[in-house]
């Protein structure tokens, strides 16, 4: 191998090394963000469980009707899709967006109407390019998530649900199973069904002013808790996915560096051997 070729190999090693520095850094950043996001995701549980418990209590203690438990009649659905704000997270965005699109097609296939609320820049970009009715866009809210923002989104949804803009709300997001696995998930959040009837009745419980009003008044808390936990869950998954992706990128880079170094050393040795041969043959011929 000629000297110029050796220079090329040296340059490639340098460039792979600097890429590896970046992926290593991203991996570390993602793993520390993941840890914090996981803590936040876990902190929602007591709140959400209590809200859900009260809703179950109400529906167990009394027969009542609420607009939030009515079966749908118009077959018009609001689909809330939560994806990431950035790429370079392996299949994270792709998986959840594919699931959302498949679900949307399924609803349209059965003659339903669909509206999309996109949370996260990648979700916004994805649905803007396609022919769905994208009614709400919330890019860049997951990282520094603020409860008042989530409450506003929840109130907005409730207002439109009451006005009959849509009669079902579904959520597509990614749930954090473990640091290695994150799964896209879909669930229906409105109308409410399958409220648990387990437990004893407590007919003596006072609902002020009435069970119906208490139930309806709890819906904003329910929706807010649900959305908040889904956004935080999805954010933790994004960081976990990015960490894994960057870890394997770093591994690949270090493997590439090993191969290139071997190539470089062989070339260097070959060059030295050649030089020695040239010198010795020159001295013999003297």
């Amino acid at each position, binding site marked *: 191998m000629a000297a110029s070729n050796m220079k090329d190999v040296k340059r490639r090693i340098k460039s792979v090394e600097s890429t590896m520095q970046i992926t290593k850094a991203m991996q570390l950043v993602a793993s520390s963000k993941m840890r914090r996001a996981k803590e936040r995701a876990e902190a*929602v549980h007591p*709140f959400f469980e*209590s809200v859900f418990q*009260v809703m179950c209590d109400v529906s167990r203690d009394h027969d009542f009707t609420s607009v939030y438990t009515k079966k749908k009649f118009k077959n018009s659905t609001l689909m809330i899709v939560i994806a990431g704000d950035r790429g370079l997270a392996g299949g994270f965005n792709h998986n959840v967006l594919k699931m959302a699109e498949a679900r949307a097609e399924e609803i349209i296939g059965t003659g339903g109407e669909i509206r999309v609320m996109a949370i996260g820049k990648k979700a916004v970009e994805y649905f803007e390019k396609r022919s769905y009715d994208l009614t709400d866009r919330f890019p860049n809210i997951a990282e520094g998530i603020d409860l008042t923002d*989530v409450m*506003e989104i929840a109130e907005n949804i409730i207002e439109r649900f009451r006005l009959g803009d849509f009669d079902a709300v579904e959520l597509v997001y990614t749930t954090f199973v473990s640091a290695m696995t994150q799964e896209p998930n879909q669930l229906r959040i409105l109308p409410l069904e399958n409220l648990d009837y387990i437990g004893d009745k407590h007919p003596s*419980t006072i*609902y002020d002013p009435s069970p119906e009003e208490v139930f309806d008044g*709890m819906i904003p*808390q329910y929706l807010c808790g649900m959305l908040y936990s889904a956004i935080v869950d999805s954010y933790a998954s994004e960081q976990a996915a990015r960490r894994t992706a960057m870890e394997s990128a770093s591994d690949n880079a270090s493997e590439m560096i090993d191969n290139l170094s071997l190539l470089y050393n062989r070339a260097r040795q070959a060059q030295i051997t050649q030089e020695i041969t040239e010198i010795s043959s020159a001295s013999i011929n003297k």
Partner: protein
Amino acid sequence: MTPYNIKVLTPEKIFYEGSTEQIIAKTASGNVGILAGHSPYVANLVASELRIKIDGSFRSAAVSDGIIKVSVDGTVTILSSAIEWSDEIDVARAEKAKAYAESKMKEHASQKEFDLAEQKLKRALNRLVVAQKR
């Protein structure tokens, strides 16, 4: 007064967990005071001041809409998406939210937007009022 257990939860954290002697909260139908041994009770809270008596003196907190529940075993749970002790309220932020909501209401937008802005204004005003009681 007999103390009893109370838990105040938000989606972000457990805001307060401990014992109290009395709670004064505002529900849709007016102020309620809860002492130990209250019968099971569930009500919605409106944006208001929540007062919790701890060791003989009341502490104030600004609560946005929420739920108050007295369980069968006598413990009280308060659930709210936003709650702050009066001495932790960010007045500048509340002022900003108030100004924003007012300008939104003057825009003569749709009824839906007006309602949302009105709720926002209510919450901001409540936080300002409670903040003055520190």
